[in-house]
């Protein structure tokens, strides 16, 4: 028996406690100092728990379980819902300071009916029998011109005829104008971004040519929720606006958004996807962002009413009381996600859509597929990435984003490593404190103490 190659071991960030997590055996424990020391020295003694929990294994048996779990993963993904993005235009009415599409063709046209028909025909044929939903992406898909409104209505009608739901990723400026139209169709959710209260948000996400966007977005969120449309509120964070998070959380609470069943949130990190940013000094690494979040939350606990950061597996463990299934692939591109634009091009995902050289084919004027490149994307997972082979974090990380990895190394089959160990150190300390501070935490500690 030897230590499992999938053990993830580390120290909690602010206490003399340690953690041991294994996604293949689906076990997670906090260890006391003595037990952690024994683990580090490889001294198992006569404690049967190491083997019972799969931290100590017969390597041949573990290799078999790794293969079996991989087949389960492939089965699950085969039946997963597919998200199909459509970009009607790369044009936008905002001039966000960190836009990664600023260099894309922003001419204000909208797709012809021939393009729309060709796209739905492609969806019908290539994703027949699959569970799927559509997502309008941009640029800004909800520009408020007559032509764009006409296109959006035609798109939603075509989706409705197929009983497909549509999500929309919008800057939110025209949401107030669009809610009456959207509320007549099957809308899965609307993703809107607020980067702070008015002053900071408007500085980071101004209208093109200047001007405030904050008040209209806030109004649009409230109206959408009142109209029964789900809102997924995103905040893009860097050092410039992390301090706004408590105020945005308070605003969402005051507005009654956080108690609305159709309201959810996500925190995005501002980072360099394809090109460098002018304010690179303001950007966080993944660890730095979560370190500052962990520091901020105790002083502004309303943040947790607004959003509970994942800290890798920490939130899932806290909420579900179990680990998720092993993650052999965290990149949905060409597997459960595709992206298409109005020029008729096909891309792997939202990271690559519109980027020259990343086209994987066309759906208009004729269907063409670069099958070799598609195969390359489809075959990427932690079993195909050389760097993941001996990495104990692989089943928590899943190899990261293929587009980011390709930008860094030139290879799709290379990793975009996630700082799993550091995030678990921070997150387990936050969600499983030694001394509970809140009623939620007391309840959880009580549940665990009975085990």
């Amino acid at each position, binding site marked *: 028996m030897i230590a499992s190659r999938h053990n993830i071991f580390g120290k909690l960030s602010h206490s003399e406690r340690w953690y041991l997590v294994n996604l293949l055996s689906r076990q997670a424990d906090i*260890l006391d100092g003595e037990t952690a020391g024994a683990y580090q020295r490889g001294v198992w003694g006569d404690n049967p728990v190491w083997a019972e929990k799969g931290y100590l294994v017969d390597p041949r048996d573990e290799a078999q379980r790794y293969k079996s779990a991989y087949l389960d993963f492939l089965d699950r993904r085969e039946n997963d819902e597919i998200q199909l993005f459509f970009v009607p235009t790369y044009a936008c009415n905002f001039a966000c300071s960190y836009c990664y599409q600023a260099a894309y063709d922003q001419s204000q046209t909208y797709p012809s009916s021939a393009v729309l028909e060709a796209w739905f025909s492609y969806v019908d044929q290539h994703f027949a029998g699959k569970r799927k939903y559509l997502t309008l992406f941009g640029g800004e898909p909800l520009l408020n011109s007559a032509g764009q409104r006409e296109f959006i209505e035609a798109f939603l009608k075509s989706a409705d005829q197929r009983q497909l739901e549509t999500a929309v990723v919008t800057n939110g400026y025209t949401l107030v104008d669009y809610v009456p139209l959207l509320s007549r169709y099957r809308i899965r959710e609307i993703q809107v971004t607020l980067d702070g209260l008015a002053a900071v948000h408007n500085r980071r996400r101004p209208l093109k040519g200047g001007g405030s966007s904050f008040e209209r977005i806030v109004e649009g969120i409230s109206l959408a929720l009142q109209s029964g449309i789900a809102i997924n509120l995103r905040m893009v964070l860097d050092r410039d606006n992390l301090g706004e998070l408590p105020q945005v959380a308070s605003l969402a609470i005051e507005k009654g958004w956080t108690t609305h069943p159709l309201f959810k949130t996500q925190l995005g990190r501002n980072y360099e996807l394809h090109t460098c940013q002018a304010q690179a000094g303001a950007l966080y690494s993944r660890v730095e962002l979560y370190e500052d979040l962990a520091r901020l939350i105790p002083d502004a606990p309303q943040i947790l009413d607004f959003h509970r950061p994942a800290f890798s597996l920490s939130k899932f463990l806290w909420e579900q009381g179990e680990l998720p299934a092993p993650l052999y692939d965290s*990149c949905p591109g060409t597997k459960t996600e595709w992206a298409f634009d109005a020029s008729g091009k096909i891309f792997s*995902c*939202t990271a690559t859509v519109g980027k020259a050289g990343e086209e994987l084919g066309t759906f208009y004027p004729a269907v063409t597929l670069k099958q070799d490149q598609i195969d390359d994307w489809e075959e990427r997972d932690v079993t195909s990435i050389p760097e993941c082979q001996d990495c104990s974090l692989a089943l928590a990380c899943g190899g990261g984003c293929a587009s980011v990895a390709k930008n860094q190394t030139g290879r799709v089959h290379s990793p975009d490593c996630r700082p799993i160990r550091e995030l678990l150190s921070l997150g387990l300390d936050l969600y499983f404190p030694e001394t509970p501070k809140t009623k939620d935490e007391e309840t959880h500690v009580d549940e665990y103490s009975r*085990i």
Partner: protein
Amino acid sequence: MKNGFQTLIRPVSAQGKPVAQCCAKTSTAVAGCHD
């Protein structure tokens, strides 16, 4: 702590469901999965 371990996995009831479930809202990944 039992034998130096404090499990973070909650016990499963006879019906095979976790004893306690948090009312987590399901999350739809709309963009941003690349980070």
